[in-house]
């Protein structure tokens, strides 16, 4: 027992506490007096000095916004540029009666209710000292009319601004994207990226497409100007200037003429087309139809146009090439064929007798071939040329879903290609694990069968099909698909070129690859499903037709295009590469509700190839002229 230990004396503690509290209170009052003394010093004794400082001209740092980098196609044709346009701007605080002033203004210059609403929205979102546009893109006549009457409108000025302009509008909306006004969310993101400083004064930022993914390159470096301004905030003179550095220019691999040819070949159909150089992954054409006019978004889209775009049944805002997922249908078969050969489940000579359907052992359910009555004796070569379904039902059954999944995923199915525009989706290559996770159901043998012909749970984007077809064209070498070929650095004048490096190389036996490639050439020859599209071609090309089911056909019923609502008709697919022996171009064509691949998609591909190799401009196909169903 320690004798020093005392039990606590609460009364004594309380007294000591109260004394300390009183001392602290005195301390608080003293420090507040100190603050008050400081305020007295600043606001009474030195008040005159500081008032002079506040009222005298003073220095403000003004940001100088850099010009946004330009975007060119592979031949130097401008795809995104900056136009000088005149805008009419109001500083709300400087106008005594805003509504009256706007009304008077409207007698000189057309101000639509839409303009007015947009201005009111900006006014709510910004401080009253900021200059806000009420009308953009003034005509020369309007500029002149306002200039003559300027004295009547203090606080309202005409400003020259650089406005982003996309000359090809709908044609490239899904590639280039657009820029839009910086939102609060963008500001938060910029702050997180420590980039806020560089956006002082910037009003726009890349929203989708290349404008978004290359924002860092395109924006440029903000400059600064030290200026003297007076009490009213008016600019008196410039003291020093650090000029801005324009954003870097992008040169794309895309060929705008080829893009136009592809667009024309499509006619009125909806769908997607991608053309790529298999030797390096450069995108040559990238069509998603219909598109939309990105110029509408630059200054904030108005309500009506937004509704038209957003609610259109054609879904023009949907980037079908990048984000549209479709069952790959029969275009899946070449990869199945390689799986069968490489995994030892099929030989070149092995053949089946096709009765026109396949049933699992012990089951009544018939998986039907597209051709009633079947194709007779079918080996691997013929199975691709005539696109025999039964052959692949059997092959899928023999391979099993796990083999299919692990082998086919090497071709990029179910994975993003990592193309350099944002928003790509991964599609779906189904597996038992996936089904368990997604539906909490076991994989049934029947699920495997339809996967074999690219239906069932299978989903791919046109971009993925292009990637997979590149692997056929290249005999197994994969390049990352990309749009940007060169970046021109405006800071130091250097040009950085994209260096194509293979992402990976698949190890596939030469003779297996050659066998499949030969069959794909015969697809475009008499007897093949794309024979009509291949007729009289001046070059050899290989391809595979496909049809992607939109609705299920019941057992015992037949697909009849004429009886089905146009929007429920099958999607037509065609994947191709040419010339067949030394491919320079890989193509994927998807025609929504186009019927069969051979009759709709392959002819479009042929026209694009004719332009690519022969410079022949296509004649548009007309929608609804699908011929006999062929797959």
């Amino acid at each position, binding site marked *: 027992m320690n004798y020093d230990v005392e039990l606590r004396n609460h009364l004594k503690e309380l007294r000591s506490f109260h004394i300390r509290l009183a001392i602290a209170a005195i301390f608080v009052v003293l420090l507040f007096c100190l603050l008050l003394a400081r305020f007295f010093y600043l606001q009474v004794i030195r008040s005159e000095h500081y008032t002079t400082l506040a009222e005298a001209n003073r220095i403000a740092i003004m940001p100088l916004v850099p010009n946004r980098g330009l975007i060119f196609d592979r031949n130097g044709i401008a795809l995104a540029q900056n136009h000088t346009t005149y805008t009419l701007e109001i500083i709300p605080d400087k106008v005594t009666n805003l509504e009256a002033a706007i009304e008077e203004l409207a007698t000189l210059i057309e101000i639509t209710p839409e303009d007015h609403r947009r201005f009111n929205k900006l006014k709510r979102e910004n401080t009253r000292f900021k200059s806000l546009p009420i009308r953009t893109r003034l005509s020369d006549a309007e500029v002149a009319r306002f200039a003559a009457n300027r004295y009547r409108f203090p606080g309202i000025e005409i400003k020259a601004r650089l406005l982003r302009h996309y000359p090809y509008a709908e044609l490239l909306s899904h590639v280039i994207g657009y820029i839009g006004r910086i939102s609060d969310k963008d500001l938060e993101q910029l702050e997180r990226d420590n980039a806020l400083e560089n956006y002082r004064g910037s009003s726009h930022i890349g929203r989708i497409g290349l404008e978004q993914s290359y924002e860092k390159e395109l924006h440029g470096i903000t400059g600064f100007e030290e200026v003297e301004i007076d*009490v009213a905030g008016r600019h008196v003179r410039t003291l020093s200037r650090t000029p801005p550095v324009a954003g870097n220019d992008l040169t794309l691999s895309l060929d705008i003429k080829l893009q136009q040819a592809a667009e024309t070949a499509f006619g009125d159909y909806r769908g997607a087309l991608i053309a790529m150089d298999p030797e390096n992954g450069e995108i040559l054409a990238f069509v998603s139809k219909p598109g939309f006019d990105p110029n509408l978004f630059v200054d904030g889209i108005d309500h009506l146009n937004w509704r038209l775009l957003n609610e259109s049944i054609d879904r023009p805002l949907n980037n079908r090439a990048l984000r549209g997922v479709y069952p790959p249908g029969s275009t899946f078969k070449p990869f199945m064929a390689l799986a069968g050969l490489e995994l030892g489940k099929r030989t070149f000579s092995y053949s089946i007798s096709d009765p026109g359907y396949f049933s699992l052992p012990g089951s009544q359910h018939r998986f039907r071939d597209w051709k009633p009555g079947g194709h007779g004796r079918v080996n691997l070569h013929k199975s691709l040329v005539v696109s025999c379904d039964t052959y692949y039902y059997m092959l899928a059954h023999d391979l099993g879903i796990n083999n299919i999944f692990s082998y086919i995923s090497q071709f990029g199915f179910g994975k993003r290609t990592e193309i350099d525009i944002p928003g790509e989706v991964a599609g779906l290559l189904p597996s038992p694990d996936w089904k368990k996770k997604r539906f909490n159901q076991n994989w049934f043998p029947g699920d495997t069968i339809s996967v074999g012909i690219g239906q069932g749970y299978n989903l791919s984007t046109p971009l993925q099909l292009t990637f997979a077809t590149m692997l056929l064209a290249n005999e197994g070498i994969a390049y990352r698909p990309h749009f940007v070929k060169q970046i021109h650095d405006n800071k130091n004048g250097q040009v950085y070129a994209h260096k194509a490096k293979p992402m990976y190389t698949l190890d596939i036996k030469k003779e297996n690859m050659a066998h499949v490639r030969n069959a794909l050439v015969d697809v475009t020859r008499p007897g093949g499903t794309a024979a009509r599209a291949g007729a009289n071609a001046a070059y050899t090309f290989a391809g595979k037709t496909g049809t992607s089911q939109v609705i299920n056909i019941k057992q015992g019923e037949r697909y009849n295009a004429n009886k089905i609502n146009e929007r429920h008709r099958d999607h037509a697919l065609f994947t191709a590469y040419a010339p067949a022996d030394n491919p320079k171009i890989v193509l994927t064509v998807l025609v929504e509700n186009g019927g069969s691949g051979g009759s709709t998609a392959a002819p479009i591909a042929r026209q694009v190839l004719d332009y690519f190799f022969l410079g022949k401009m296509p004649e548009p196909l007309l929608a609804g002229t699908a011929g006999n169903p062929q797959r």
Partner: protein
Amino acid sequence: MIDFNRLWHYLTRYVDNFLLGGIFLLMLIGLVVLYSASGGNLGRISNQIVNIAVALTVMWLMANIPLQQIKRLALPLYIVGIVLLIAVALFGEIHNGARRWLNIGITRIQPSELLKIAVPLMMAWYFDKSEITLRLRDYAGATLILLLPVLLIARQPDLGTALLITASGFYVLYFAGLSWRIMAGLLVSAAAILPLFWTFAMHDYQRKRVLTMLDPSQDPLGAGYHIIQSSIAIGSGGIAGKGWQKGTQSQLDFLPEQSTDFIFAVFSEEFGLIGNGLLLLLYLAVIGRCMIITANAPTQFTRLVAGSITFTFFTYVFVNMGMVSGILPVVGVPLPLISYGGTSLVTMLLGFGILMSIQTHPKLVKT
């Protein structure tokens, strides 16, 4: 039918009306100044109103929790806080060169904010536990409780918060009866350590802030800009001020951070010395009420907690006004109840909720 009298009684049972009135007035002034500082941006105003609503709810909840429950929370809260701080040091997100944020999936949190309440609670709990007269080793133990989080936060680096938590812990030590001699000793040794701290522990930007405070004209476009511009704003306000929304310094965007840390400069410019005096009086009234609650607190634990909360609040006010008027270095401390922002507001009102709980819950009679 709802009985409104009973509902009202239920809602206000544990609320201290005088304190709430003071807080309300200060927050109202905050909104008025914010309107002017943000150039009439109603978005900011509505955000701040949401912040206020959330903070008031937190305050009400705290006020309704009896003291025994709060006391039980002290240790777990402290441990959670320390664990989070360690997590920040290991996996925290870096923003503007400081590792302060922790991403917990739904949102990002700043654990140092939690410690502002947890540290005084924990120290008070620790002192209250002792059955015998406090000895030097008890004070040493409490100091360790304080130093662990402070060092972790200073490392982030977030010197402002570290100093404020040190202050809140120091107030607990002081009210627990730390001898005057030791406090004098601490002061002397602090003065001795300061040069070492200056050379070895401080970051360049921190040293620069102190130097700039001593002579703002040295760096008129960089760190000194804040102080010069806010001094001009305050000084040009004069005795009566320029009037609401008429301050040129703030309206022409010469003031930095004018909705948050420097909002006092906007107030000063527009309402002048008279406004400043009234604002100080209002703060003094709130602090005075808190001191009365502290004096009447029934137990050692509540006294220490109340004392610490009261004087930490005072410290915020003093440090912010001192910084904006150029007598203290620029540290990122908001003006409590007036600056724009939700985090500090919630922490402040949480503290006031505890004070209200201390004041309004039935006091145990000591035998």
